[in-house]
C-alpha cells in the first residue's frame, strides 16, 4: 500500500485545525484535514454548520463564531476528510487513519496536530454511574442533537464551561436544580495575584460576570465552596451529596453534570515521544513547543488546546501561527515574511491568553477531586481504585507504567484518557514527589481502535 503524498496533514477540525488548514491553503500548500466527526467544528463548535438558527442563538455568540471559520475553510481547496479516525501519526510524518471501514495512509511533509482538549477527569465516589456525565457531554447533546435534560439537573464543579452551560440551559428553559460550585474563598484569594491581567482582559471578564449575574438573577440554588462531592446510587445516579456552608448536603437527581476544567488531549504528542512538562498552574502535561508550535519532533506542530488550555480564539490564532511556521519550514514562505505576518497574530494571542492565569488560579480543581479517597475508581475501564493504586506504590511502583503492569490501570479501551492525570497525581502524592517526576503513561498507537482485519489490510 503506497501512501499518498501531501504537503500537510492537519488532525482535528476544531478552531485550531480549521484556521490552520485555511491559512496553509492560502499559502499554497496541499492540505488534508482529517476529523472524526461528520461536520467541522471540533467540540467547542460542535455541529455549527448543521445547527438551526434558534439553537445557535441559544448557545450564544461565541459558538456562532465557529461558522466564520467553517465557511472560510469551505472556500479553500483543503481536502477535508470526514469521519476519519486517525490511529497513528509517525515521527516520519506518515499518518494512518480509518475511514469508510478501510485503512488509509498519507505521507505528509509536516503534520499539524489540532486535537484539542477533553474534560478533566472528576474521580469522585459514584462517578461511573449511569446518569453522571460531563458538562461538555451535555453541551454536545445540545449542540449535536438539540437535547436537554428533562428533569431539574444538577451542575457540579467549577470553571467557565460549567457556568456557560448553566446560562445556556437557562435560555433554553431547562430547570437547574442546583449549581454546586467547588470554588472557594481561598480560590478568590489565590487568584487575586492575577487580577490586574484579568482586568486587562476586561471584555472576557465582563462576559463572565454577566453570565454569573444571569445565573444569580434566575435564583438557581447556588452552593459555593462545596467539597467532598459524591454521587449516590446503586445502578444509576440518585443524588449528589457534598459539604457546603459547614453542613452535609444532599440533592436528589438522576442527572448530574460534572465539570472541573478541560485538559489538553496529549495522546498523539505522547505517542510521538515529544517532550512534555507538568504545568503546575493548569495541573496537566503540556507538550513543549517553540514559538510556532513545533514540538521537539521535527515537522510536527501542535496548535490549540492540545498544547495548553487557551480557549477557542487562542486556538484559531495558534492554528494560523503554526501554519506560518510550517509554510516557512516547507519553503513556501520566507522566514522574514513568516515573522512579519506573525506579529499581529502574536499580539492577538497574547491578548486572548491574558485571562488564563486568573482563570487557572480561580477555578483550580480541588485536590480531593483530583487525588481521591481509596474507594474511588480511578481507572474506569479496568475498575482500579485509588486505594489499589496506592498499594502498588507501597509495593515499589514508581510511576504510571509500572502501575499499568501491576494492576492493568490504563490498559483499557480509553488508553488512559480518563485516568492518566489522576494516576500521575495519586502516585506523586503517595510518593511525595512532584507530578513531573512521576511522568505519564507511555502512549502508543493505535490512538483509536482499529480491527485486526483493518490492520491486516483485508
Amino acid at each position, binding site marked *: 500500500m503506497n501512501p499518498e503524498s501531501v504537503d500537510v496533514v492537519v488532525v482535528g477540525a476544531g478552531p485550531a485545525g480549521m484556521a490552520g488548514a485555511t491559512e496553509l491553503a492560502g499559502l499554497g500548500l496541499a492540505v488534508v484535514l482529517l476529523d*472524526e466527526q*461528520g461536520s467541522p467544528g471540533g*467540540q467547542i463548535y460542535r455541529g455549527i454548520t*448543521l445547527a*438551526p438558527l*434558534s*439553537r445557535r442563538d*441559544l448557545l450564544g455568540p461565541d459558538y456562532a463564531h465557529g461558522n466564520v471559520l467553517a465557511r472560510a475553510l469551505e472556500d479553500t481547496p483543503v481536502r477535508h476528510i470526514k469521519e476519519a479516525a486517525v490511529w497513528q501519526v509517525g515521527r516520519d510524518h506518515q499518518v494512518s487513519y480509518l475511514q469508510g471501514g478501510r485503512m488509509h495512509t498519507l505521507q505528509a511533509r509536516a503534520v499539524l496536530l489540532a486535537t484539542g482538549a*477533553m*474534560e478533566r477527569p472528576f474521580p469522585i465516589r459514584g462517578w*461511573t*454511574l*449511569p*446518569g*453522571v*456525565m*460531563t458538562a*461538555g*457531554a*451535555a453541551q*454536545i*447533546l*445540545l449542540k*449535536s*442533537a*438539540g*437535547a*436537554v*435534560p*428533562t*428533569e431539574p439537573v444538577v451542575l457540579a464543579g467549577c470553571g467557565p464551561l460549567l457556568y456557560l452551560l448553566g446560562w445556556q440551559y437557562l435560555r*433554553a*428553559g*431547562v430547570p437547574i436544580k442546583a449549581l454546586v460550585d467547588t470554588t472557594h474563598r481561598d480560590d478568590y484569594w489565590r487568584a487575586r495575584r492575577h487580577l490586574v491581567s484579568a482586568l486587562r482582559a476586561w471584555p472576557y471578564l465582563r462576559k463572565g460576570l454577566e453570565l454569573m449575574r444571569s445565573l444569580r438573577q434566575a435564583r438557581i440554588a447556588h452552593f459555593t465552596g462545596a467539597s467532598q462531592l459524591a454521587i449516590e446510587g446503586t*445502578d*444509576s445516579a440518585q443524588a449528589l451529596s457534598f459539604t457546603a456552608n459547614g453542613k452535609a448536603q444532599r440533592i436528589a437527581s*438522576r*442527572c448530574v453534570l460534572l465539570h472541573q476544567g478541560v485538559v489538553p*488531549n496529549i495522546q498523539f504528542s505522547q505517542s510521538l515521544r515529544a517532550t512534555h512538562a507538568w504545568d503546575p498552574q493548569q495541573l496537566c502535561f503540556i507538550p513543549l513547543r517553540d514559538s510556532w508550535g513545533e514540538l521537539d519532533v521535527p515537522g510536527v506542530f501542535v496548535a490549540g488546546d492540545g498544547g495548553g488550555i487557551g480557549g477557542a480564539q487562542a486556538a484559531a490564532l495558534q492554528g494560523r501561527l503554526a501554519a506560518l511556521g510550517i509554510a516557512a519550514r516547507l519553503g513556501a514562505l520566507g522566514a522574514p515574511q513568516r515573522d512579519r505576518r506573525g506579529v499581529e497574530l502574536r499580539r492577538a494571542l497574547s491578548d486572548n491568553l491574558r485571562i488564563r492565569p486568573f482563570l487557572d488560579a480561580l477555578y483550580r480543581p480541588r485536590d480531593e477531586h483530583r487525588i481521591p479517597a481509596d474507594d474511588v475508581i480511578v481507572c*474506569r*475501564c*479496568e*475498575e482500579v481504585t485509588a486505594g489499589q493504586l496506592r498499594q502498588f506504590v507501597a509495593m515499589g511502583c514508581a510511576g504510571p507504567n509500572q502501575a499499568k503492569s501491576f494492576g492493568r490501570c490504563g490498559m*483499557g*479501551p*480509553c488508553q488512559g*484518557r*480518563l485516568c492518566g492525570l489522576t494516576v500521575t497525581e495519586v502516585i506523586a502524592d503517595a510518593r511525595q514527589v512532584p507530578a513531573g517526576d512521576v511522568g505519564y503513561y507511555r502512549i502508543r498507537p493505535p490512538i*483509536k481502535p482499529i480491527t485486526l482485519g483493518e490492520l491486516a489490510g483485508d
Partner: protein
Amino acid sequence: MPIEAPSRAPLFQSVAGETRSSRSVTFSFNGEALSVPPGISVAAALLMSGIERFRATPVSESPRAPYCMMGVCFECLVSIDGVPNRQSCLIDVVDGMQVRSQEGARDLQFEVPSVSVLEVQP
C-alpha cells in the same frame, strides 16, 4: 440478561423552540422499537428514548452509560447491527438500526459450519 425497559422519563429530550423536522428515525434497542429525530448519534437517541444503561462492564458487570459524548471515555459501547463494542456517540442513528446493550466482553461471532452432503452413487 437484564433488558432495559424504559420505566421512567428519559433523561434527555429535544429542546423546546426548535422547528422540528417531521421526519423521524425508527430503530430498535434490545428488540424494542424506538423513534427519534433524524441526524443524531445513537447515544443521543438512546438517552432521549429513556435508555439509561448501555452496557455491563467486562470486569464486574457494572452498569455504564455515556460520560463524555465525544469518543474519549468508551463508556457508550453498544452493539450496532451485530457489531459489538461500538462507540455510540460517534455513530449517527439510521432507520432500521438494531442496537443492543453490550453485556460484558464481546462474543467472537461465528456461524455454525454448514454440513455438505455427499451423494454416493449406488
